[in-house]
């Protein structure tokens, strides 16, 4: 493989120094085999600019910290190989989330608020007995629940969503996928209508206009079109029947 000289154009802004306005800064780096953006950014920070801010934890597409706009599209930096990108790579932080600095955003507060709004935990009156064996669950259902649970909360779907970009209170695919999980879980005793009160709104599933950028860019490939449609059908039915 012929070695390329990559040009990175990186968004720079530090809210702690507001006197320096947001700008794009260029860096150059020689490409090495199998280089990911994780490797490239760490080399840039070590070799060229120690003030460059970005987030990484797991380097293996599990933790969801390194979501950023890669040539305009949300994606995980650790999972993106530079060989799949052109010579010029533009990196920007994810929109919608609060900027910590440069490429680092705070997805935690956003997701915490989402989970609190949705009360994204099992609601049950059953008392938990730690000594009794676990209740059995049908394997297909367990897998359907797991499909939604695979979300790593990287925020890519939210950043890719036109509605979430325009309307700060929109739940987005991550939120609707989260509620899909509780709608199909028999252990959750909330009725669909109780969930409808929170999700059957313009901030919830009926705010979604179906542009499907979430479905196209989800780094862990959750079938978001189907998940959102499931929530939509269940919510419409709950709204019509009041159950």
């Amino acid at each position: 493989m012929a070695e390329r000289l990559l040009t990175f154009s990186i968004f720079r802004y530090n809210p702690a120094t507001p006197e320096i306005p947001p700008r794009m800064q260029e860096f150059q780096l020689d490409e090495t085999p199998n280089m990911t953006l994780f490797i490239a950014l760490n080399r840039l920070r070590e070799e060229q600019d120690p003030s460059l801010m970005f987030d990484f934890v797991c380097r293996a597409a599990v933790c969801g910290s390194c979501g950023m706009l890669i040539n305009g599209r949300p994606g995980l930096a650790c999972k993106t190989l530079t060989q799949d990108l052109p010579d010029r790579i533009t990196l920007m932080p994810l929109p919608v989330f609060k900027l910590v600095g440069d490429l680092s955003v705070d997805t935690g507060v956003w997701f915490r608020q989402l989970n609190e709004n949705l009360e994204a935990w099992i609601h049950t009156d059953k008392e938990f007995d730690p000594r009794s064996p676990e209740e059995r669950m049908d394997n297909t259902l367990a897998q359907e629940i797991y499909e939604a649970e695979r979300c790593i909360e990287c925020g890519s779907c939210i950043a890719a969503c036109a509605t979430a970009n325009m309307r700060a209170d929109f739940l987005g695919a991550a939120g609707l996928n989260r509620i899909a999980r509780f709608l199909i879980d028999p252990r959750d005793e909330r009725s669909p209508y109780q969930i409808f009160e929170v999700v059957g709104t313009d901030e919830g599933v009926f705010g979604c206009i179906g542009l499907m950028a979430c479905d196209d860019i989800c780094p862990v490939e959750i079938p978001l079109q189907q998940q959102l449609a499931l929530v939509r059908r269940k919510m419409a039915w709950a709204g019509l029947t009041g159950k």
Partner: protein
Amino acid sequence: MYLQKTLAKSPRWEAGTELVELITGLFLLGFLQFHLFAVSSIILGQETFNRDSQFLDEYYISYIGIPLVILAILVHGLAAMRKAPWRVEEMRIFLQHSRRLQHLDTWAWLAQILTGLGVLVLSAIHIWSTLSTWPIEAAKSALRVQSGHFSLLLALLLLAEIHAMLGLYRILVKWSWVHRQRFTKYLVYATLGLVALGFVALVVFYFTSVKV
């Protein structure tokens, strides 16, 4: 908690508006294709066209249908517009977002909004000019097409079919079980076929001889 929001929040109204948009959209989609096939009867000759038109007139289908369609257009337009980016800031966010993302489905929403607005204007002209020469007859329609309405009707045909098919695509994406890759191409074929049929009908009108 915020007083005004707590008092005004109604999931039922919000879900209801979404369903109204869906139902009026499906109704208009059905009407559009019915209208297209009805008008295309001109390809089989003036007599066929006039017989169809008289049939719709005789059984009062036109007199119930036309007001319903006008109402549906208004209601659908208003319901659908509520989500469009009308504030300058929203508009700029949407356009910048679309340019960054370079994602076909996201651009398609812009196409949906613009074709919708186009249909609203052109269909108003079309309905007005048709009603002002009531009843519908092949000769009158041909005269209209030949006296300057050809390009208007061609534009309306294109805008309405693209808008309707994008809308159907969006409905299937939002409500169905099927992955969109599996139906996209059929919708594209259907759009091409319907536009072609409408174009042929327009050309036949253009070359229909009108006895003055």
